[in-house]
């Protein structure tokens, strides 16, 4: 259970978040939508403690995230960063198995490598990429390596920042199914940011729309088309006309 309570965050004069409230029950898949630059990635980073909110509280299982043993806390999380954020000095398999090669989850190298290759297979990558460096892969392949790394240690809570951006439609479908599987099979709690409406419908239990620094609307994915909120309607239909200004 993740509870975000009245989070504010400004970078210099730019107020990005102005009182975000959201709660994600355990084992649910929440998808966050919203325009570019509205602070979706910043919200995820606030939960992980990578960005410190100016005001507000975030509770995970009832405990304040700022007042916990960081390592212990973060070992429950997996995160796919928007830009992949792969370590370019390490081989692909060492990236995927990063958590399994050190710290509390450390296991023999051979076993870690096997798990890494298995996770790579799940995101549609062949074993031969395991021994390449991230810089040798295409953007979409890097994204999938990042995804494999996020799920490698089978975390309880997983964040995906635009998992299907830059992937072809078939691969997007594979990744959508994978995320759904992780939530259903592993019982993980997932938060996904995406701009891809097909993904939203495939992945989400619930959807939240971030706009103007606040959660504009949240509800079950089944109500996405019928909620009657003009902002959500404009976003879902992708029209240039509506309350959200498209500066031209």
């Amino acid at each position, binding site marked *: 259970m993740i509870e975000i309570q009245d989070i504010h965050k400004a970078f210099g004069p730019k107020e990005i978040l102005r009182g975000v409230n959201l709660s994600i029950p355990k084992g649910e898949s929440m998808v966050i939508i919203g325009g570019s630059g509205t602070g979706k990635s910043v919200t995820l*980073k606030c939960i*992980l*403690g*990578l960005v410190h909110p100016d005001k507000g509280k975030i509770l995970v299982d009832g405990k304040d995230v700022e007042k916990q043993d*960081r*390592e212990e806390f*973060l*070992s429950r*999380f*997996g*995160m796919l*960063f*928007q*830009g992949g*954020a*792969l*370590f*370019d000095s390490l081989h692909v398999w060492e990236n995927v198995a*990063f*958590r399994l090669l*050190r*710290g*509390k989850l450390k296991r023999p190298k051979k076993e870690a490598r096997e798990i890494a290759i298995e996770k790579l297979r799940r995101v549609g990558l062949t074993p031969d990429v395991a021994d390449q460096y991230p810089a040798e892969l295409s953007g979409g392949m890097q994204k999938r390596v990042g995804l494999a*790394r996020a799920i490698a240690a089978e975390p309880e809570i997983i964040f995906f920042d635009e998992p299907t951006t830059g992937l072809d439609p078939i691969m997007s479908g594979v990744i959508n199914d994978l995320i759904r599987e992780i939530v259903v099979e592993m019982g993980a709690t997932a938060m996904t940011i995406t701009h891809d409406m097909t993904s939203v419908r495939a992945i989400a239990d619930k959807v939240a729309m971030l706009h103007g620094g606040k959660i504009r609307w949240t509800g079950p994915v089944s109500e996405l088309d019928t909620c009657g909120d003009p902002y959500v309607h404009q976003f879902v239909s992708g029209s240039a006309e509506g309350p959200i200004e498209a500066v031209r």
Partner: protein
Amino acid sequence: MGLLSPIAALGRNVLSALAWVGRLSIFAAGTVRHIFTPPWYPREIWHALLTIGWLSLPVVGMTAIFTGAALALQIYDGSARFSAEAVVPQIVAIGMVRELGPVLGGLMVAARVASSVAAEIGTMKVTEQIDALVTLSTNPMKYLTAPRVLAATLSMPALVAVGDVIGIMGGYLVATQRLGFNAATYITNTVNILSFDDVFSGLVKGAVFGFLIALMGCYQGMQSGRGAQGVGKATKTAVVAASVLILASNYLLTEVFFSA
């Protein structure tokens, strides 16, 4: 208001300089703590020893040999004015071991290592790799900073020692080949003049410079602004700050060792 504004500007600069020193000190203290507390990352330390220490050998060696050679020529020419040419071996030895070996070696390593460390860590910062490390339950101070600072602190004295030997050899070559010194006497004079303190002080300087170099590289990298421009600025600041800190601490250390 108009009259006071230069003073206000001065005050602001002094305050921001003090704030910088404060932040750097906290960073340095944290680094030292992480060096001495587990977990350690042997692979990272080994890699840092290789890239910071071993691969700096050519640069340090080249610097030392040419400096030693030029020093011998200068001392010969200068001491000829009062017919004291015989002091060349002694002065070359003391000059290299106490001052030029550590300082010039340190500056060259600063150019090589502070820049590459700052650029590497800065790039990791702007591409969210540092954030990724944190989310993978790995402390970037332990995984990135501690190994580099430890490796630089350990390998700089070794580099200085090698530089001392090569620098003295540069002086020896010029003195015996060009200036007509007797080879055996030159070596005897060199060995006789050098005391333990001379060599030891140079090695301590090396360790301090190594610490400062890697510390500045890591600190500026971690503080890097966004984008390629941020990394460029971090790299530049790291090299400049490391160089200035080397020269300033060299003066302080020389006071400590030799002013008594």
